[in-house]
């Protein structure tokens, strides 16, 4: 602390005695920070965005280790656990769960859950469960926490209409829901960058045609058009094929906004002095685009792309909820929420809505991070 004050004082003296030299010294130090570092610094200033980024990283880790974290096989149907209530946890020399018996009133056909914590079932940490491949490589059957096999099932979020574990399904669902939006936006970004740069740089007739095409695509309401494209997908395709086709469908409409934004940026750069200088030095169009225009717009592209992700995640969830996006046997948050389509089901078994919490948290975080990135990249916009 004291040394700081001394150098600071010294600097002041130097400034008053020899202003030019001291200023140059300070300037050169500022110049040592690269553009990227500056952006990271500005990003860190927004506390909300940083917190949101950590939550997102946490969610992606959950998606990556979903099988390990899941106590139960997400596709295993079990009539005994149909709409089972979430397991209630307790402590008895270690984590344990109460036994819950489900009683169906035959007259009113309502289900009541009787909890009995006098005889808790101890839970096993790193216990044996269903078999899977850790990170897709190492075959194992160890899970973070499971109920002893055969005795009971640990259902943290309860069971769905087929007695499948909603918690495990939510973890598995994050794999599709968190990647499909990013994947779709990645395709859209490539398409949008090419079309936007081309349109903005070429100008004239090319620009007009591309802009008109974008206008035509944008003159069909987005969600209805997405729904139409999703509905014409054949029913008999595999989950992976459906995932890829859905991402392409989402990207087919998402690119127009990106292209528009980028065109504006590129038009600004294209009329700048350094591009004219490069042109008069004999640089060819591909070189100008790849060495002058794209690197300059790169940070802007990232910001716009980040802000496009929430809308695609909402679209996938909505379409899956309506039954025309991802479908069974695929698992995504929207597919899980399909169970919550009927009011009486939600009223009786409110835990079928729990995956919605994940949807809302993920979308909020993407929005906050997107806002943070935009502010860091483009502080004046």
């Amino acid at each position, binding site marked *: 602390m004291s040394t700081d004050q001394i150098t600071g004082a010294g600097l002041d003296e130097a400034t008053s005695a020899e202003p030019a030299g001291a200023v140059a010294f300070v300037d050169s130090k500022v110049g040592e920070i690269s553009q990227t570092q500056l952006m990271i610094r500005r990003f860190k200033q927004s506390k909300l965005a940083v917190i949101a980024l950590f939550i997102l990283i946490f969610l992606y880790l959950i998606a990556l280790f979903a099988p390990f974290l899941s106590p139960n096989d997400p596709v295993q149907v079990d009539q005994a656990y149909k709409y089972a209530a979430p397991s209630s946890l307790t402590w008895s020399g270690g984590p344990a769960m109460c036994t819950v018996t489900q009683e169906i009133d035959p007259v009113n056909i309502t289900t009541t859950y009787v909890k009995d914590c006098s005889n808790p079932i101890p839970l096993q940490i790193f216990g044996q469960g269903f078999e899977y491949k850790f990170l897709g490589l190492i075959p194992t059957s160890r899970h973070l926490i499971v109920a002893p096999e055969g005795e009971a099932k640990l259902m943290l979020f309860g069971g769905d209409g087929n007695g499948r574990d909603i918690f495990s399904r939510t973890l598995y669902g994050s794999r599709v829901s968190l990647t499909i939006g990013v994947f779709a936006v990645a395709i859209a970004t490539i398409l949008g960058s090419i079309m936007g740069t081309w349109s903005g740089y070429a100008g004239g007739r090319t620009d007009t045609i591309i802009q008109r095409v974008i*206008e*035509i*695509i*944008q*003159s*069909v*309401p*987005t*969600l*209805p*058009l997405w*729904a*139409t*494209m999703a*509905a*014409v997908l*054949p029913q008999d395709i595999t989950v992976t094929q459906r995932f890829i086709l859905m991402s392409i469908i989402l990207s087919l409409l998402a690119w127009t906004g990106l292209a528009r934004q980028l065109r504006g940026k590129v038009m600004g750069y294209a009329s700048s002095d350094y591009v004219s200088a490069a042109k008069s030095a004999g640089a060819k169009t591909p070189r100008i685009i790849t060495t002058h225009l794209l690197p300059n717009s790169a940070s802007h592209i990232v910001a716009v792309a980040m802000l496009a992700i*929430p809308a695609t995640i*909402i679209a996938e*969830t*909505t379409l899956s*909820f*309506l*039954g*025309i996006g991802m479908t069974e046997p695929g698992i995504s948050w929207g597919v899980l*929420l399909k169970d*919550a*389509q009927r*009011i009486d089901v*939600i*009223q009786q078994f409110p835990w079928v*809505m729990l995956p*919605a919490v994940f*949807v*809302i948290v993920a*979308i*909020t975080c993407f*929005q*906050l991070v997107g806002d943070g990135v935009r502010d860091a990249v483009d502080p004046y916009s």
Partner: protein
Amino acid sequence: MLLFILRRLGWGVFTLFCVSLLTFFIIELAPGSAVDSEIERLRAMGSTVSTEQVEALEEQYGANDPWIVKYGKWIGGLLRGDAGMSFAFREPVADVIGSRIALSLALGIGATLLAWAVAIPIGVYSATHRYTLGDNIITLIQFIGLAIPEFLLALGVMVAAVQFGGLDVGGLFSNEYRNAPWSMDKFVDMLAHLWMPVLVISVTSTAWLTRVMRANLFDVLGQQYVQTARAKGVAERKVIWKHAVRNALHPLVMALGATISGLMGGELVVSIIFNLPTLGQALFQTLITKDTYVAATILVIMAAILIIGNIVSDLLLAWVDPRARVMG
């Protein structure tokens, strides 16, 4: 001005033509056709359908024509005002659309008005009280409003209404009014069924418009003429509402066209959940039942509404902002 409107309308018609080609092409990609479903339905009802009958049906509906021929038949019919019969609804397509378009427009316009009525005062408060507790709370609510998918919000509102209010939700009318002739009571009953969907549809655009309003008003408040007004002693209330807000409204009018697309998406989802007979719900029904031509027709009608909405918002902009008139 007239030339500007005519030019916009002409371009709108061309756009609509391109949209019809595009949607028809997408819909024709679907495997299976309404004829197949119809044959299956006949078989399920117990009648035997011979190969000749199948061929006759396919001949009648032109199921084996190349898509451009089908497109010609379809668009020709549309231009003559004959959109054919719907397999899914078992009534003429024109009736299906005609009976639904009014409700769709009412929902959309209602949601827009509500969004504006809420977004402007809140945006003004937010911009004039930047970074205070109130502003931060509003910003947080905005983010949540943007993050909750409409279908979740609709489900939440419905459950809350049933659970705590004991309200009758879903559909357009209560049971006793369903087949009753129009009366004041029936109208009130309809409004009681419509306010919730309107509320849900408007949430996303309200959140977005509040943000736009806040950012714009903040920019305008920093301008020198606002400072001048304050310096000469104009009351702060008047400075904000008369000098600043008026100039901050233009981007909101510009955003009107952009919000229509979002409103239509919201209407589709919300009316499926609330079981309202709107265009969006009809589109969904026809998509599921592979009633392809009707789906394409509805999509084109929706695009037409969007295009007209955009022209209207351009005209509104020219009306509130003389600078925009030069563009035409």
